[in-house]
């Protein structure tokens, strides 16, 4: 089911938890609501669930305005951070509970519950109580319970944050698999950008109750709409440098250092403000390239960390800190100075912090 939010807002006393949110979520998509804690992502989810009533704006499920519809009539399933399983009921009874409330007859309820248990692979645990299950198993029960009513929308509130790192990876794939299999529109709240990147069709990034960007994970990563988005996405984080634009020489000059990066390709420099911020992702540094005209900088290296897949270099670019991620195949030895090409970078207006230009290698030969 398609979900549409128009000018949605939620105030708690003095604070605006969610501010003027307008988005459309396509049918069958998995959308992550991402942001640091306190950004309004859980509030948004609770409004979708009907647990909070918005102070302004509309929520449409399909063509239907659901602002005044109670949670139980919204045809939603929800998984909570602490799973919220009924501790006194067995796994089977937990999954059957929503059906019992909907007065589905016992035999059918049993069949649907066991079928759902099979889908989430817990059909061997039906007689256990939630307290006897591991975190991952409880998670699966919670998902089965949320899906058993055949809801139109599945809401997940930080479902992975109580799991250990390895299980988190496994459950993340599992949620994606189940979501694809059922084909249900899913909204997934998380504060982990990697989780959001890996699982979502689209990411909705929020900060202080305000929408920052709503787009596909790759686009958000490559073309952040503002400085906050670029810094929130990616690990290790993006390198950020204050710089001034030299319009005559068509280049940016990093402050407090002698480094300048040419602005290549089809770019109208005259519209650039004087002061800008340049963002370069660690993996946008490469040591070798087939194209000769890529901007090139020299880095003095302090620390080399080899993680197997790639190598993390920490050092200085002029007077400023820099982190670069390059292929492990590159033989480094004990170099102190390294010249690297920059394949991509983003220029932000230093006043508004909005992005004004992306360099993606085009225009270089």
């Amino acid at each position, binding site marked *: 089911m398609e979900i549409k939010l128009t000018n949605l807002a939620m105030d708690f006393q003095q604070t605006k938890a969610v501010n003027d949110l307008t988005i459309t979520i396509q049918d069958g998509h998995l959308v992550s609501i991402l942001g640091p804690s306190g950004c309004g992502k859980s509030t948004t989810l609770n409004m979708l669930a009907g647990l909070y009533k918005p102070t302004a704006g509309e929520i449409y499920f399909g063509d239907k305005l659901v602002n005044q519809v109670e949670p139980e009539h919204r045809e939603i*399933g*929800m998984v909570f951070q602490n799973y919220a399983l009924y501790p*006194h009921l067995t796994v089977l009874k937990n999954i059957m509970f929503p059906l019992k409330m909907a007065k589905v007859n016992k035999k059918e309820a049993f069949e649907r519950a066991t079928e759902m248990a099979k889908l989430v692979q817990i059909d061997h645990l039906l007689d256990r109580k939630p307290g006897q299950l591991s975190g991952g198993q409880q998670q699966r029960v919670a998902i089965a319970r949320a899906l058993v009513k055949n809801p139109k929308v599945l809401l997940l509130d930080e479902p992975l944050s109580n799991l250990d790192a390895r299980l988190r990876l496994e459950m993340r794939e599992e949620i994606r698999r189940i979501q694809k299999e059922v084909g249900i529109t899913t909204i997934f709240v998380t504060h982990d950008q990697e989780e959001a990147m890996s699982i979502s069709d689209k990411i909705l990034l929020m900060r202080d109750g305000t929408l920052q960007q709503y787009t596909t994970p790759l686009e958000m990563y490559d073309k952040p709409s503002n400085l906050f988005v670029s810094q929130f996405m990616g690990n290790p984080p993006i390198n950020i440098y204050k710089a001034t634009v030299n319009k005559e020489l068509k280049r940016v000059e990093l402050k407090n250092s002698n480094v300048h990066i040419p602005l290549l390709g089809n770019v109208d420099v005259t519209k650039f403000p004087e002061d800008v911020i340049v963002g370069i992702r660690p993996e946008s540094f490469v040591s070798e390239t087939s194209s000769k005209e890529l901007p090139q900088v020299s880095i003095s290296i302090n620390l080399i960390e080899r993680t197997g897949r790639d190598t993390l270099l920490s050092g200085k670019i002029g007077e400023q800190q820099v982190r670069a991620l390059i292929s492990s195949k590159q033989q480094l030895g004990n170099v102190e100075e390294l010249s690297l090409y920059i394949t991509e970078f983003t220029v932000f207006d230093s006043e508004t912090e909005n992005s004004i230009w992306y360099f993606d290698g085009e225009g270089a030969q």
Partner: protein
Amino acid sequence: MRQAFSKGFIYILLTIGSLLMLLPFIWMISTSLKTPGEVMSMPPTWIPESWKWDNYLKAWEMAPFLRYTLNSIIVVIVSTIGEIITTILAAYAFSRLQFWGRDIVFAILLGTMMVPGEMLLIPNFVTLSNLGWINQYEALIIPWLASIFSIFLLRQYFLGVPKELHYAAKIDGCSNFRFLWSVMVPLAKPAIVTIALLKAIGSWNAFLWPLIVTQSEEMRTLPVGLTAFTTEAGTNFELLMAASSMIILPMIILYIILQKYIIEGVSKAGLKG
């Protein structure tokens, strides 16, 4: 070695403590088996010279104890069930429902716990006599159908249940009332059993109020019935103790059966009983 020593020390302390607690009971049972002469003898004896088991039979026949027992049972059962129902509903309202003035009302209720019970005897008596309930079951039961302490205890327990459970139940299509009975009550079982037991013991042992509001023999409860052993000529201690021993027995049995729940209930609610 040191550990064994400190453990031994703890056990010795606990043994002394429990013996001290048990002494009155032992004395009661010992007295109940003595002859009238030995009861008064100086120095007192702990073990009766001759074991007068027929004291129990005599005590039972001194007053209509069957009727008293029946009254006590009726009062205990009805007031306990009644109090459990009012407590569950009130505790839920004060912990989970949002309504105007909720916390103020609750604070006022808590405030009433500071009024000593004796202060209320006369106003309550006047109210009940105006209602025409004196010397009726209504007088024995209705004033005791709600307890602020129980509401407070259960409310604390309910507050410990995560609110996500409520949200989940709401999304699953559960009404407030349904959620209360099919999720909250089963979860709070230990607390509810504790409340029921405290209530049953209190109600079974109640003396002053039943004494005041009952006038005829057939409305008396067991503790009030014990006054039958005190006459102008003095008190039949051995018979009084025999009757007391019989009366106290059901509560001890009830406690032993339910003690597992009580410990859990009191400790989880974060309160000392």
